[in-house]
């Protein structure tokens, strides 16, 4: 099955992909396509600025809806800068941990009080 390409810049309407709200628009689209068993290619072509806030909502949230295997199998990315790839990797690792252990935040107070 050929992947459907999502041009991020077109969904956001700007080369600055920074706001969480804009990430939500991308998430809604990917969510719909993956739920429909489609393969998705995310193209970051011409994206000039990316934040983790944007990527958390656009991609991070997917780990709450789909398994890691489903995402690995059906989602791919292209035209992402080296620095964007670092941010995305960080977002993905954070999301995996977040959904594996939903109670972690509640316990995290100890992270600072134990020091």
């Amino acid at each position, binding site marked *: 099955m050929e992947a459907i390409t999502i041009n991020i810049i077109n969904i956001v309407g700007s080369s600055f992909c*920074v706001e969480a709200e804009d990430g939500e628009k991308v998430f809604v689209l990917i969510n719909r396509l993956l739920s429909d068993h489609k393969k998705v290619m995310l193209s970051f072509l011409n994206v000039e*600025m990316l934040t983790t*806030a944007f990527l958390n909502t656009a991609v*991070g949230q997917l*780990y709450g809806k789909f398994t890691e295997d489903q995402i690995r199998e059906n*989602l791919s990315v292209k035209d992402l800068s080296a620095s964007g790839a670092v941010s995305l990797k960080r977002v993905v690792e954070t999301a995996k941990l977040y959904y594996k252990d939903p109670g972690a*935040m509640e316990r*995290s107070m100890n992270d600072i009080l134990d020091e």
Partner: protein
Amino acid sequence: MSILNNINNSYHGYQQLIDFYHEHKDKLFDKIDLELEFWFAANMASALGGILDLLNENFNEVIIKSIQPDIEKILLKNEFLSYFGHPSISDDYQTTIKFQKLKPTDGKFFNNYVMNELLDRSELPRMSQLVKQKIAEKIYEIFVNAQIHSKSKHIYTCGQFYPKKNTIEFTIVDMGIGFKKKINERFGWNLDATQAIKWATQDRHTTKIGVPGGIGLALLKEFVTLNKGFMHIISDNGLYQFDSNGEQMHHFTRSFPGTIVNLQFRTDDTGSYTLKEEIDLNNIF
């Protein structure tokens, strides 16, 4: 007459701004005279702008009466004073990063601002394009944090470029809920202000419900370490300072009515920020 004397990026400077706010916060339909003496770090205009707006909300008129000529010049150039009845003047040496007051929904205006005031500035010659890009990214992460979390009516930003010191100082301010209240309400904890800020700066710590996050401030700390700049976060009565030597925390005698994120970046940073290992896009998920 209230006097702000030597406002710089220090505990003493922040405390003076907090004291000025508390001195006048209960006034209604009043005239408040303010004098700026000796020094006022241009980037701190964003914190003063936020405070003056709160005082204006109570129908007070704040008159900035006496300003040292050097301070006045810089606050005219960065257009801060144009919000308070003064004309703006042109910045021949192009060292200011303009004072801006934005609604949280004005993200697109902020894009233009970052582009015009930072990324497209050819007069920042000593700064590599990569470092410029990195700095802009970090500034964005903070702006977006304020958008998502602060519940502030406005977000205030201002900066200054110091060619001789090879630094950029940039400050983002909101007059919203603050770290302590936000975090304690979310989790039912009882952290003090500095504990709350410290918690928020740690990797993967987020108050968002159902959405992962908490990376922006952690990335900022990592960049500040590499770039040898600093970050100060003032929220409620807490000051959290972080630089390449580590972190320090202090308490003020009273609370700032919002959050100040004050950043210093080194523009002579020659770091290549190359990646230790290239990330394989085919294996990113």
